[in-house]
């Protein structure tokens, strides 16, 4: 690195100290958080395994038919069938559990933050640059503190995925809330709604399509993180791809990559908010 006339600001050192400080003082907390995440994802994987592949596929085919019609249902049937046939079922379920957990937590954390940003301008101004940072910082960087705080395996993968995948949910929720027409807010106020009633009965339902677009993006971003998450030992399809890259196995790389694509398309279509007209 070039040495300039000015002394280098020890920004990296500070980041290091900060993570060190957190590890020293809140290690217990993050440790139990990691255990919680581990248990939840593990539980999901076990649950998927109990269901066994065939009923699992049928349930998703049914959901696809109900939400989007028979073309997507057919795609789901063939796609999941192919994954099963290729022998990636177990890893796909692990990836699926990782994505579901990350997205659920993204929504649980992101929705309230998004609502707050939607109704409170100072908070929105505060959180916007943070969201920019979260989305543009190379996702690998999250992995380093995540390892310190959460160890290796599924939990740091989930946490890095949440950080990367959550911003669209927050942004779109905030946008949706702010896009509710002013006269509907006035109508709600004029009839004497409490802020909570206004939120539940007017703002959230009306901004739901926008919020769902955000959740859909979060799901896509979560899927794009599975390979990165495998770097810290998160099991699943990402690990297969990682293995394929490091051992130059085209076959595994193609099959596992295709499985990720199938899951991505399926989840994208199922989470898109288009009402099916009868």
């Amino acid at each position: 690195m070039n040495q300039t006339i000015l002394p280098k600001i020890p920004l990296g050192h500070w980041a290091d100290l900060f993570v060190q400080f957190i590890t020293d003082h809140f290690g217990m907390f993050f440790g139990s958080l990691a255990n919680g995440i581990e248990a939840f994802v593990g539980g999901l994987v076990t649950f998927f395994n109990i269901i066994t592949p065939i009923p699992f596929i049928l349930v998703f085919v049914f959901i696809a038919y109900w939400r989007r019609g028979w073309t997507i249902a057919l795609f789901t049937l063939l796609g999941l069938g192919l994954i099963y046939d290729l022998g990636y079922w177990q890893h796909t379920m692990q990836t699926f559990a990782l994505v579901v957990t990350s997205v659920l937590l993204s929504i649980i954390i992101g929705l309230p933050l998004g609502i707050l940003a939607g109704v409170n301008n100072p908070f929105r101004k505060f959180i916007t640059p943070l969201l920019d940072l979260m989305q543009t910082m190379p996702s690998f960087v999250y992995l380093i503190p995540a390892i310190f705080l959460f160890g290796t395996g599924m939990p740091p993968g989930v946490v890095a995925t949440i950080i990367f995948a959550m911003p669209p949910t927050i942004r779109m929720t905030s946008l949706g809330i702010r896009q509710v027409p002013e006269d509907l807010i006035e109508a709600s106020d004029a009839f004497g709604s409490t802020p909570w009633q206004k939120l539940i009965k007017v703002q959230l339902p009306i901004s739901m399509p926008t919020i769902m677009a955000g959740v859909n993006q979060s799901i896509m971003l979560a899927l794009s993180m599975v390979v990165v998450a495998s770097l810290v030992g998160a099991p699943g399809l990402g690990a297969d791809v990682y293995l394929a890259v490091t051992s130059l196995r085209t076959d595994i790389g193609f099959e596992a990559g295709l499985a990720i694509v199938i899951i991505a398309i399926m989840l994208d279509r199922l989470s898109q908010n288009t009402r099916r007209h009868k």
Partner: protein
Amino acid sequence: MSKIEVKQATKVFGKNPKLGLSYLKKGLTKSEIKKKTGMNVGVSNASFQVEEGEIFVIMGLSGSGKSTLVRLLNRLIEPTSGTIAIDGQDITLMNKKELRDTRRRGISMVFQRFALFPHRSILENVAYGLEIQQVDKKERLEKAAKALEIVGLKGYEESMPDQLSGGMQQRVGLARALASDTDILLMDEAFSALDPLIRKDMQDELLDLQSEMHKTIVFITHDLDEALRIGDRIALMKDGRIVQIGSAEDILMNPANEYVENFVEDVDMSKIITAGRIMSRAEAIQVDRGPRVALKIMSDDGISSIFAVDKTKKFIGVIHAEDAANAAKEEQSSRSIVKKVEPVTMDTRLTDLFELISKSTLPLPVIDDMGRLRGLIRRPAVIQALAGNLPSQRSEVK
């Protein structure tokens, strides 16, 4: 006690409303304050009262502050200064809960762009006010269905707002406001987004509803015709100030200043002027008196027919000179020769009079609410009034 009493209400929009207020007190105008501080004076020192059961119209062009003023009445916009009393309670002093209660049970509102909730069915829209008051589901849906019936939308309960035409949507807006059964109804340009024919229908319907419900209605409009049609009293606004308050006739006949005068000069007088305003004294005979008396009066006045009334001055009909002469010969009573004729009421509009008088050879008798003869209208009076020549004020009979 007036239902609504507004005293010196002022709203300044901007960073430092108190500063704007002090400039206003020094007598600066809205545009001077805008230039000096960049702040916008929405409403400046507005004072008025609305009585129970009255339709009070606030009228002005866009930017005159009328929409701001109506929002001060339920504090959708916080006033910068002044007091606003509803049933004697100053709402500017209320805390959030008291204000919510007033909005729930005291004042409801109808909006220009309908403001229906797009994700709720028509019935659920109408029930909204009751829902947030936590009225139980069965009861609130019943009340909502009733309100829908009142506005003539029975059968549309399960439709969604976007399936209805503009006129129907605004009926839903009205039903939603009626469902809460509040005494006060604020209507912010409620009919302005509708096309003219439907607007007329809605105005008529509002008047019909009002004659049954006796709400206190504050109606905002930029349309003078609308204001004159439905307003018991009208407040004219300009640049955030109330320029004049009065009945339709007050404003038309005695404009407070040049602004009002310019405003009202294009008004179609035929819709404003009533029979009571242009009628002249009617000669009448008490029907129990004989036909000879009738003949005598007619020949004295040089007329060929005369109106007949009973002892209480109630209008009965008309007696023609020929019939009276025959009756006098044959010794009949006056009552037997009275011919029926349709009278008009004092508040019949000039437009309607014109049509009636063009069909009739006789002058039109004018009666009051009790059915008593108050005057008559001859054809020249109608034509003169249409031409803008009104008889001097208070030429009313007795």
